[in-house]
């Protein structure tokens, strides 16, 4: 950083206190322009490298990204006859095709609908129908879901993509056939589709024959135009599409750039893209920000098992790792990673869910580089706050990014007193337009331009924020608030604990009581009493888990967030069943 930390913090504090918003300068008028400019700047450098678990790889240069995504745009507009604003559902794991279809959709002036490849057929149907997608781009690994999905949706065209598309021919051939005939993970496809490679070729032919300039497709685009429908709410209930405009996403790119400027060297970085690009965190961090910074993104399709990442770390000089707590924790538990941490690593960015202090400290100790925490939501493109890489604070989500105002509200919607915890509300250029065709849902979270996040936070000194917890995860023990994050953070420091989740479970006397679920490292044994004894050293009595359960794994979302709700539901179900048995027994007696 060129500026000193104290200057920066004091000026930011002023921003928040006076609530004058600094205007954010957008790097381009729309995302298609951002892509074209970036590709023109870095031309023959590597933009994306997809790495398979055995080390086989394929590269795309910035120039190739420009040309091939133009072909996608022409295929969509000329080949399929789509119009600006039409929705394209892209359901791909991290692979060379993903950036082409995402950028191509934007270059066609269409709206990108990111879809999780692991979705079940009913989930796909819901999202396709809700968004009104006309085209579905899907990876061949899940082609078996197509007949059921197409029967119930209005999708007109299906493009079937292989993970190995655009790999060197022989390597792609070998890798594809190993997957098909040895691993047998590619099901046969029984519906009419266009292959990803055919679609590109068709786009190229049409561009030549009709002499089209794809730039004409984006003539009407501006910062307020809808760019993507990013579905969210999988952990809270029915899935809704957050409407993110070109301006929202561009602003977030500029906001990240402002915060990390000085530590990211344009055109010289290598960023690991192991979080799925269809998720807003990797979408903005890897696909938009690091791409824009001229970095080489290393795409890994599946981090399961984590040894899949070994070749990526060995073969490429990875300098940045955007990740989530479970990824950092998991890597620290891998011996190959601990023994030989990536030598070129500069920093890591944690988001998605709370970063445990124990994990952050060990990451610093093992890699010699910081993992800085940020905070964001799908509805805010996503970054709201981020720690500066110099002068970062462990346990804090950092300071609001430029042009962003944050307020902490009490249950009535009024700002809380200083030093008090309240619901975090955000205003800024990255806040979504609203939920797609859901005005009532929109008014629940967007009030007078403020986005209500449902997260409880508190101001630390110097304009740093700390998230205490999700509003709905709060545990109420005899009227006392217990924040699961605090208890989890404490238990995670206990040696031998691999993972931990804390939830509130119903209790007849206290209303709720604290229950901890632990996953231990192999070969470790701990008793419930040892866990409680450890907690007693740093937590007040009512925060100590009354129950401790040891498990072999915890339920998680596709990006590795622990699903506390699933644990709570299972617990309620168990209590319900037990009381049913008790009633049955009673009537018999």
């Amino acid at each position, binding site marked *: 950083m060129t500026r000193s930390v104290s200057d920066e913090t004091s000026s930011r504090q002023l921003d928040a206190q006076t609530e004058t918003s600094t205007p954010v300068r957008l790097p381009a008028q729309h995302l298609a322009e951002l892509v074209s400019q970036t590709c023109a700047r870095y031309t023959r450098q590597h933009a994306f490298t997809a790495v398979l678990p055995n*080390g*086989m790889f394929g590269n795309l240069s910035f120039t190739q990204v420009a040309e091939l995504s133009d072909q996608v745009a022409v295929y969509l507009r000329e080949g399929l006859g789509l119009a600006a604003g039409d929705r394209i559902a892209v359901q791909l794991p991290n692979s060379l095709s993903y950036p082409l279809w995402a950028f191509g959709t934007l270059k066609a002036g269409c709206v990108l609908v990111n879809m999780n490849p692991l979705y079940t057929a009913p989930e796909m149907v819901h999202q396709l129908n809700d968004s009104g997608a006309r085209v579905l781009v899907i990876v061949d690994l899940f082609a078996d879901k197509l007949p059921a999905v197409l029967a119930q949706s209005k999708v007109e065209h299906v493009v079937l993509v292989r993970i190995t598309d655009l790999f060197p021919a022989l390597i792609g051939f070998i890798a594809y056939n190993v997957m098909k005939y040895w691993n047998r993970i590619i099901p046969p496809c029984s519906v009419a589709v266009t292959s990803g490679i055919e679609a590109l070729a068709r786009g190229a032919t049409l561009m030549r024959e009709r002499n089209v300039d794809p730039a004409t497709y984006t003539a009407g685009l501006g910062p307020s135009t809808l760019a993507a429908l990013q579905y969210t709410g999988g952990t809270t209930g029915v899935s809704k599409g957050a409407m993110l405009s070109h301006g929202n996403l561009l602003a977030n790119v500029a906001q990240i750039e402002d915060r990390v400027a000085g530590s990211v060297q344009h055109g010289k970085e290598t960023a690991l893209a192991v979080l799925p690009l269809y998720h807003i965190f990797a979408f903005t961090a890897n696909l938009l920000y690091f791409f824009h910074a001229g970095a080489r993104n290393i795409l890994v399709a599946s981090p399961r*098992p*984590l040894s899949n990442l070994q*070749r990526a770390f060995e073969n490429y000089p990875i300098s940045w790792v955007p990740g989530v707590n479970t990824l950092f924790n*998991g890597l620290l538990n891998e011996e190959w990673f601990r*023994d030989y941490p990536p030598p070129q690593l500069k920093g890591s960015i944690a988001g998605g869910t709370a970063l445990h202090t124990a994990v952050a400290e060990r990451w610093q100790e093992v890699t010699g580089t910081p993992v800085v925490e940020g905070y964001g939501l799908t509805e805010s493109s996503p970054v709201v706050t981020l720690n500066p890489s110099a002068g970062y604070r462990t346990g804090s989500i950092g300071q609001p990014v430029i042009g962003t105002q944050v307020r902490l509200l009490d249950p009535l919607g009024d700002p809380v007193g200083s030093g008090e915890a309240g619901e975090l509300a955000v205003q800024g250029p990255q806040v979504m337009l609203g939920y797609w065709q859901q005005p009532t849902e929109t008014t629940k979270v967007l009030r007078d331009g403020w986005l209500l996040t449902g997260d409880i936070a508190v101001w630390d000194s110097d304009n740093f924020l700390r998230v205490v917890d999700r509003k709905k995860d709060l545990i109420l023990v005899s009227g006392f608030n217990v924040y699961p994050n605090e208890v989890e953070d404490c238990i995670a420091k206990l040696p031998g604990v691999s993972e931990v989740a804390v939830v509130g479970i119903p209790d007849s006397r206290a209303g709720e009581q604290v229950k901890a679920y632990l996953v231990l490292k192999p070969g470790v044994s701990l008793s419930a009493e040892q866990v409680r004894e450890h907690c007693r050293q740093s937590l007040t009595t009512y925060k100590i888990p009354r129950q401790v359960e040891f498990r072999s794994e915890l339920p998680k979302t596709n990006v*590795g967030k622990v699903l506390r709700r699933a644990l709570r539901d299972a617990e309620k179900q168990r209590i319900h069943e037990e009381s049913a048995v008790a009633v049955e027994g009673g009537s018999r007696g």
Partner: protein
Amino acid sequence: MVSQTEQLLLALMIGVIMLGMGASLTWRDFRRAFKRPQAILIGFASQYGFMPLIGFLLAVTLNLPPALAIGLILIASMPGGSTSNIFTYFSKGDLALSVSMTTFSTLAAFVMTPLAIFIYGSRFITSEISVGMGSVISGLVVMLIPVLIGMFIRRRNANVGAVLEMMGGILGVVIILALIALWVPRNAGLLAETSWQVYVAAIGIGAFGFLFGFIASFSARLGLRRAATISLETGIQNGPLALSIVLLSFSGPIADQIVFIPVLYSLFIVIISSIVTIFYRRMNERLEQRSVTLL
């Protein structure tokens, strides 16, 4: 007893497979192996401490004739064979550790092998056993040069490396199966005449090696993956080196008798290693599966 074709196949097998093995390795794998010297030391101790002893005890308890006893002690005193690297690779073990151990025990063979044979073998035979420098060195070269080439290729182009690795694996399996298929029918008569004591000795030496190597390294808290690697390294001896030593030190009918157990061992070790490898592979995959749930 071992034909020219078989010897050629063996050399070819080792060369092609080690090229593939090398293509799966980087320098940091070796640095990691040497970060925990206790693994290499325990491997060394079980290789030259335990194995010759168990060879001697088997020879005495089974009351083997002197020529066969010498053959057993000879194979027990051998350094690790490069086949151990192949089985370690297939079992998803620590390949760099395996290669390091093979290299280390082979270099030590100049001193340790004659020493072990002197200690345990003098009861059965008085003549001197010499370990041919040439055969040891050429064995190492055949093993290490392809590894280095493989590593170099992977560094230059990971795609070519991955293809070599895959081909090495496939060819390795094919050649191992071909060797068994060639050897067994041709020696069926001989196998039928052999007494059960000889079978127990030839099979037992490898099996005890696997067992002891695993228990010793597991007790030393080296973890399951390294325990499996050291186990394979201990049980799998350098058979071809034993054959060349016999041919160098003896001649006539006595040589044929001495070489019998090393040959029988070499045949059966492939079979029991395959079984043990399947077991270890499942174990190592389960260890990997644990990390699946992390994300």
